């Protein structure tokens, strides 16, 4: 029957080890095997961006990677963003305040796309922000409030 592969990886700073089938998607591994359901699964073919996570620091679609390929790698999901329980990452805080979300389904993907973007580009223009989020779909906000939230977060994170 199906062969299992042992994977050992770091997720949000914690090491974990599991046995997985080769065909298990990384997005399903995170949600079902690790219980990290903050990573959302929308289209499952790389269009919507909801499942975006960081793989060794780079935003990638976890529905287009096999769990077995994450062996030895370092992952970060939306659960790893907040500095402590009861606190929010500045970008999360800005999304809240600027109404950067309504239903929230797309939000983890936006956050995981934008955190490395802001590290690389701490004071982006609106155009750069819109380019950065071009691979993430949001059906509620019309994107304007998301752009506002990013600008708010960028201002705060820069003056810190």
């Amino acid at each position, binding site marked *: 029957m*199906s*062969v299992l592969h042992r994977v050992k990886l770091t997720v949000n700073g914690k090491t974990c080890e599991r046995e997985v089938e080769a*065909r298990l998607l990384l997005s399903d591994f995170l949600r079902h095997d690790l219980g990290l359901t903050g990573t959302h699964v929308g289209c499952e073919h790389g269009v919507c961006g909801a499942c975006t996570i960081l793989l060794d620091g780079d935003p990638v*679609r976890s*529905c*287009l990677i*096999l769990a077995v*390929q994450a062996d030895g790698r370092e992952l970060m999901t939306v659960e790893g963003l907040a500095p402590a329980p009861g606190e929010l990452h500045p970008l999360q805080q800005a999304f809240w305040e600027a109404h950067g979300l309504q239903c929230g389904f797309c939000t983890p993907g936006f956050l995981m796309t934008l955190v490395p973007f802001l590290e690389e580009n701490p004071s982006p223009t609106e155009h750069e922000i819109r380019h950065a989020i*071009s691979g993430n779909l949001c059906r509620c906000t019309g994107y304007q409030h998301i752009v506002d939230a990013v600008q708010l977060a960028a201002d705060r994170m820069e003056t810190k």
Partner: protein
Amino acid sequence: MKPASFEYLAPDSLDAALDILAHRGGEAKLLAGGQSLIPVMNFRLAQPSLLVDLNRLRDLDYLREDGGGLRIGAMTRQRRLERDPLVPRLAPLLREAVPFIAHPQIRNRGTVGGSLAHADPAAELPAVAVALDARVRLQSARGERWVEAREFFAGLFTTVLEPDEMLVEVALPPPPALTGWAFLEVARRHGDYAQVGIAARVTLDEGGRCREARLVYLSVGDGPVEAREAARMLAGTDLSDEAIAAASDKASRDEMDPTGDIHASADFKRHLARVLTGRALRRAGARAQARAQAPGRGKE
């Protein structure tokens, strides 16, 4: 589970990968960045029995200057093409095209070799490879061979790769002097598949007239489509509006056979190709002029 079951092998050397292909090439599917393959596996449109993951072949992830040209390892991520300073210097057309490839998240995974070997007619890299006279190195346990990019693509999602071969490297020749370039495409949203795209290159002679032009299109046929007649018509002209209009008409009318879809009819695609040809030639021509007038131009 979305994909159907498959056997998974992740060789950690090129020799080991080629050995697998030598014995089981007929049933194996190669996994590079996976940004096209995994979606079709998720839909079960593809159900390979053996998946050979190339992501441990770190030796194939490189950009290197070579005699004024650029060598690109097949497993080089597309994102790196946007960031490495060698690319704008040695292959500015490639640099201009990369941001049109899907989205940053996709380019973080997608590879140069994977995109070429996948041979999607709507993909940017195959058209750029043809426009730049790239050559690709195909390797197998039997040996290696070099193939011109324009000979590499053999039809819809099809290349001349044999079942036991792997594309391991792309070589771009040094950019010729007095040359300008342009990459343009029309898509319904940024990052979507192009309805039509063009990679254009113009080389001037000492007198400022067009010596050679290259026009290569995406999304208007079953692979990268080169308009050779239109390019020939441009040679010797001063790239006047009339010359550009004649070449644009020729290319869009006689040298492509686009298939319409629900978003763009074949006629509309021809229209887009005609308009994009004009814009690309004007931009490429202006860049070539600017290079001709730049101080210290010459041999490079």
